């Protein structure tokens, strides 16, 4: 383990924070030892995958794993146009080589997007292209040996599938597509990753990533309701499994217990309360996250998504709204209709699904919510665009709504807002370093190193604009930053939920405490608007 000071940001000779995109020294193989724990046979079996580590089978691989891996690769190139076109099309121009946060943070050349892709591409070439079959040395084609497989496991788990490289590639080659395929292949030869596969098992058994059973979830929500009532004097509810509610809220289970996620959840509850919405959570679909995307398993991703559809049908809701979660929003926005649609049983007047930021912004635009922005005056905010929201989804009607709507919400509830440098936000945003199924303590070193570009960008606005806090709308980003911020010399609590800011500032009609209570006396508009 590293000393804390290792990651502290050091100013350059001009006294400036180093550029987040600064080229690192080239250190081949320096991250070869950083790999997440492997799934055992129980975990593998729970998802219908073969193999996995057992007492007798230390490497966990199935018999004839080479053959099976190659045949899976062939199957996937026939099922995914992205994979086939991307394996064929790369010209090795080098445009992506300095775009990955894991490369910028480590200098390991295999973390350059094209080099990461090549780990699979060279095997594809060997088995599926003419040149690779007859003149492998010419085109860099190799057989799938145990070493190559080991490299796959290592470096496809040093990719957070953030898609930053795909923004810059002249052919739009998306390394996420390749790393998802590689993980799918590895799962089918017994080389699954413990973290993702164990979590998916919990979703199927219990309903959420945390393995929080229904009773515990209900108790948690009751506690939160008490806390909200204490704070505001209002009976703000967090209903669960409420038949006939209008809105089903699906949110990452981290929102039920971790900070700053939970403050965000209370923010959603206040917004729903003030808007007079009839909403509910579901114990069956008590998880927005869908880690099946990270492991590239369409079938598993579909099964997890169908839980949300079933919850919506069973509860008879009219709308589905997702809480703050990055990859969940990608699966929800981009894939849910495909995986679990059509949603013709829901109210056609609303998009399916909606993001909580879309919901809140809509309420703000309608004038239904009032805020006392001064409640957030102790902070100067910036916003971290989460990769899956930024580069793989949208909010609102217009391209780029995923950047504007969260910022609009923040600006509606805060007086002090500053953006980080242009090449580190919006579609060029840097990953937090923990996305894509990497948010596990067994690879803490790559997580910290991968956070470096974002940390530098944050440091820059901290020094130039006095930014104190960074808001995010992703459970993984929030958890990752809570962990790595102190390593880089920031306050652990410098990461906040967007709806935590909303929660701080919202003026609740009839509140006896908090911002609402003062406003009640002199702000009649708030009362009128709430009616």
């Amino acid at each position, binding site marked *: 383990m590293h000393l804390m000071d290792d990651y502290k940001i050091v100013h350059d000779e001009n006294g400036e924070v180093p550029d987040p995109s600064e080229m690192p020294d*080239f250190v081949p193989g320096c991250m070869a030892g950083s790999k997440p724990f492997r799934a055992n046979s129980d975990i593998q079996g729970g998802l219908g995958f073969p193999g996995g580590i057992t007492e007798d089978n230390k490497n966990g691989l199935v018999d004839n794993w080479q053959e099976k891996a190659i045949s899976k690769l062939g199957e996937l*190139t026939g*099922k*995914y*146009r*992205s994979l086939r*076109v991307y394996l*064929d*099309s*790369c*010209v*090795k*121009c*080098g*445009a*992506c*080589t300095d*775009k990955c946060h894991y490369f910028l943070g480590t200098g390991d*050349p295999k973390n*350059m997007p*094209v*080099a990461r892709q090549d780990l699979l591409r060279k095997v594809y070439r060997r088995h599926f*292209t*003419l*040149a690779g079959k007859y003149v492998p040395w*010419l*085109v*860099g084609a190799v057989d799938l040996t145990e070493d190559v497989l080991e490299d796959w496991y290592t470096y496809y788990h040093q990719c957070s599938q953030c898609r930053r490289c*795909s*923004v*810059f*590639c*002249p*052919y*739009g*080659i*998306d390394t996420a*597509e390749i790393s998802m395929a590689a993980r799918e292949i590895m799962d089918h030869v017994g080389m699954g990753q413990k973290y993702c596969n164990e979590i998916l098992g919990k979703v199927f058994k219990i309903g959420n990533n945390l393995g929080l059973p229904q009773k515990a979830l209900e108790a948690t929500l009751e506690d939160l309701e008490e806390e909200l009532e204490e704070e505001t004097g209002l009976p703000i509810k967090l209903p669960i499994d409420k038949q006939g509610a209008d809105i089903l809220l699906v949110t990452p289970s981290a929102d039920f217990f971790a900070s700053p996620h939970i403050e965000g959840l209370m923010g959603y509850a206040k917004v729903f309360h003030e808007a007079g919405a009839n909403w509910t959570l579901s114990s069956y679909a008590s998880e927005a996250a869908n880690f099946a995307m990270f492991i590239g398993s*369409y079938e598993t991703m579909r099964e997890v998504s169908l839980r949300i559809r079933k919850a919506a049908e069973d509860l008879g809701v009219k709308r589905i709204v997702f809480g703050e979660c990055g990859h969940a929003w990608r699966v929800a*926005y*981009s*894939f849910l*209709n*495909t995986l679990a649609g*059509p949603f013709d049983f829901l109210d056609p007047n609303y*998009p*399916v*699904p909606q993001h909580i930021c879309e919901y809140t912004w809509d309420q703000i635009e309608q004038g239904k919510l009032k805020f006392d922005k001064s409640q957030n005056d102790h902070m100067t905010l910036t916003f971290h665009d989460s990769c899956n929201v*930024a*580069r*793989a*989804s*949208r909010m609102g*009607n*217009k*391209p*780029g709504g*995923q*950047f504007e709507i969260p910022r609009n919400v923040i600006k509606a509830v805060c007086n002090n807002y500053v953006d980080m440098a242009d090449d580190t936000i919006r*579609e060029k945003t840097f990953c937090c370093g923990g996305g894509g199924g990497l948010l596990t303590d067994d690879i803490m070193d790559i997580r910290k190193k991968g956070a470096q570009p974002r940390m530098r960008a944050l440091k820059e606005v901290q020094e130039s604009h006095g930014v104190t806090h960074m808001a995010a709308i992703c459970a993984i980003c929030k958890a990752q930053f809570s962990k790595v911020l102190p390593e880089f010399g920031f306050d652990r609590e410098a990461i906040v939920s967007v709806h935590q800011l909303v929660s701080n500032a919202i003026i609740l009609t009839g509140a006896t405490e908090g911002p609402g209570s003062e406003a009640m006396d002199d702000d009649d508009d708030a009362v009128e608007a709430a009616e």
Partner: protein
Amino acid sequence: MVSTIYAMLFYLAVLVFAGGLAMRIRQYWRTPAPLKIPTTPAPTTKTGVWMRMAREVLVFESLFKSNKWIWAFGILFHAALAVVILRHFRYFQQPVWTVIALVQPFGVYAGFAMVAGLLGLWARRIFVPRIRYISAPSDHLMLLLLIAIGASGLMMKFVSHTDIVSVKMFFLGLMRFTIEPLPSDPLLLTHLGLVALLMIIFPFSKLLHAPGVFFSPTRNQVDNPREFRHLAAWAARLETGAAKKN
């Protein structure tokens, strides 16, 4: 003898190039894209996607965002190559179209520009450690091949002229399936041999980026997954399979 060999070579090259490319395109076309994965922000209409693709193909929009040097050398090479190819149309036409006639003087400059762009790209491949690391022998040889084609072509213009009237007769002949005599000076034979080689390896190499970009789901998909359900045939079968089980 040389004429016959080159005639056969070019028939073969055209066959492999056109047939191989058609097969690849067919394969890309028929391989489903089961999920909506446009890199966002993405256009929300088909027209928007056409425009995005046009910017990508004509001005290399993403590459411009990425790296100005690669973009400059890349666009110099590709634009010049386009002009050079247009210039060569005159060997296949009788009479020559006006637009091709007008292109002729630019074609010469384009020949130099093309080679300059290629040399720039090659220099980066050799001297930038990141790009050297990702280069296989074939990546160097591909540039060498293109440079050799460009250089041998330029040398016929500026060093040692060939009998271009006969060359034209040869190609017009090929188009009518008759073999006319081809001049046998080494520069010309080198130039033509390398072009035939390029055509033959095209469908089996990274040159597939040319058709590939049009099939790239991150660039060619409309951002409308909430409005329209997107379902691949194999994914649809999962649904009927599940229905049967129940």
